[in-house]
């Protein structure tokens, strides 16, 4: 028995619309509620049933500025940017070198680098804590930068490696025959072809560093505290200031929004760690 195509389409369409609508409400509700919470006064935030119409106030955001919390955002920003710089500086040549290597050495190194990315952060946080403690580097930015590099350098190498593997070798070979060094071939031939991929990797490295909690939480206490660590420490106190916490959370969402709407397509491979291309 053949069903009329139109009927099938109609049912499929209805299912899709309802399913997506429910899912989008599920996804957006917490975000919208955080934004609303950040614009309420402390009194309004505690009202049950919640007031949907209220006069928005930027008091909570003012508190971030006046309460000396801005340096925490500065820390997260510095750590993220330092990670982008280091992961690119070390990762680009490594990925290029690996992609032009052949044989078992290449496969073993690539395999090792990917396995680092999958290893439990909890396995690294104890020894890194013990080492940083011995070096008197606890609660400093370099400690967190190094810890985040354990996640981000493997990510950068792996993504760039699979990208460089697919670039045709003809053009760089022409450059090499003309007497260019490997470094010149990389900077003048390969990198200009890799713009969008480099941007995608840099964005992902930044976001992973910005979002990371476990290392930042264990390695810092005050001076080098990052945004996620601050949110967790405020969430653990008895006297909740919901508007302030919501405001900090909303500010912490900014990179996610920028990345997802500017570069959604190009970061997909990085988000799934090479499981798909």
């Amino acid at each position: 028995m053949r069903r009329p195509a139109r009927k099938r389409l109609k049912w499929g369409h209805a299912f899709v619309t309802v399913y997506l609508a429910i899912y989008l409400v599920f996804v957006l509700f917490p975000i919208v509620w955080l934004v609303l919470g950040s614009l309420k006064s402390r009194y309004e935030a505690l009202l049950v049933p919640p007031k949907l119409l209220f006069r928005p106030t930027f008091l909570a955001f003012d508190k971030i500025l006046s309460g000396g919390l801005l340096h925490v955002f500065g820390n997260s920003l510095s750590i993220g940017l330092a990670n982008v710089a280091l992961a690119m500086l070390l990762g680009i040549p490594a990925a290029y070198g690996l992609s032009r290597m052949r044989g078992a050495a290449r496969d073993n190194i690539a395999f090792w680098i990917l396995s680092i990315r999958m290893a439990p952060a909890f396995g690294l946080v104890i020894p890194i804590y013990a080492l940083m403690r011995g070096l008197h580097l606890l609660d400093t930015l370099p400690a967190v930068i190094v810890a985040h590099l354990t996640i981000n350098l493997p990510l950068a190498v792996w993504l760039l490696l699979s990208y460089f593997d697919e670039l045709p070798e003809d053009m760089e070979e022409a450059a090499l025959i003309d007497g260019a060094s490997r470094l010149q071939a990389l900077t003048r031939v390969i990198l200009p072809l890799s713009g969008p991929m480099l941007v995608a990797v840099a964005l992902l490295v930044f976001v992973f560093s910005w979002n990371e909690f476990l290392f930042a939480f264990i390695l810092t206490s005050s001076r080098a505290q990052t945004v996620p660590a601050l949110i967790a420490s405020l969430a653990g106190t008895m006297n909740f200031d919901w508007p302030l916490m919501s405001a900090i959370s909303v500010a912490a969402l900014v990179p996610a929004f920028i990345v997802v709407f500017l570069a959604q397509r190009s970061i997909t491979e990085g988000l799934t760690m090479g499981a798909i291309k």
Partner: protein
Amino acid sequence: MAFLQRLGRFPASFVLPAVLVLAAIVAFPTVYLLYLSLRHWVIIEPLRYFDGVGNFARVLRSPDFWNSARVTFLYIVSTSMATLVLGMGLALSLNRTFFLRGVVRALVVLPLLIPPIVSGFAWKFLLNREIGVLGSYLLPAIGVKASLLADPHLALFSVVIADMWSRTSFMFLILIAALQSIPAELYEAARIDGASVLQEFRHVTLPLLVPAIVIGLIFRSIEAVNTFDLIYVMTQGGPGTATMTLSIYGWKVAFTSFDIGRGAAIAVMMLIATVVGTTALIRRIRR
């Protein structure tokens, strides 16, 4: 340096800096972790000494460890299954063109890029029994009177909801990539044979998605073993030990009881478990 020369100048000199850095910040700490797991070292006690497998023995004898292993297992199974089912629905729904599809796709992917600590906080905020809009208002209105995060039986469920919110997009991305690689001719052939939508899914789509589903499930399981932020900010492993997964348990031992040696032993066991999973995964990805 004969070794370097044998490797040849070009690839080695490019690859070596990153490998050396990773050796220093990953390989060395991993070896150091093994060493720490064999030592008695409690930060607040002056005595440190070699303890053999003493830490492992004490961990394996502790009921808290076995409870955490059980909670972790429940957590892995429920979050993997939940994200698989929801992600499958999303992938099937978004595997066609429609108005504003790009925007919808971006919104679906968004939670994956949000700091898990914020996702956890947002759900804690929503589910709070006193002031959360769900916990204090909407859920009681439909007859759910319990405080989700304070109830030992419901706390893990609440954490899984937040995890689902945060991670379903991961499953979605893996599944939609696999869906889009299924040739359209297969569907046309099924249609000509008069297959219903369900038959088409059961006999065409699903068999071709199996490899992606397996990869997604292994990935999600490894990720679930490692989840720390979300649970920490929502419940810190409580109430009691109801949401105490292995990473929360290990953190408590190492950083609130300051027993570095025993924490390291827990980490070593987690490392072994994930290495097994990772090896299986990488084999599959490389095919």
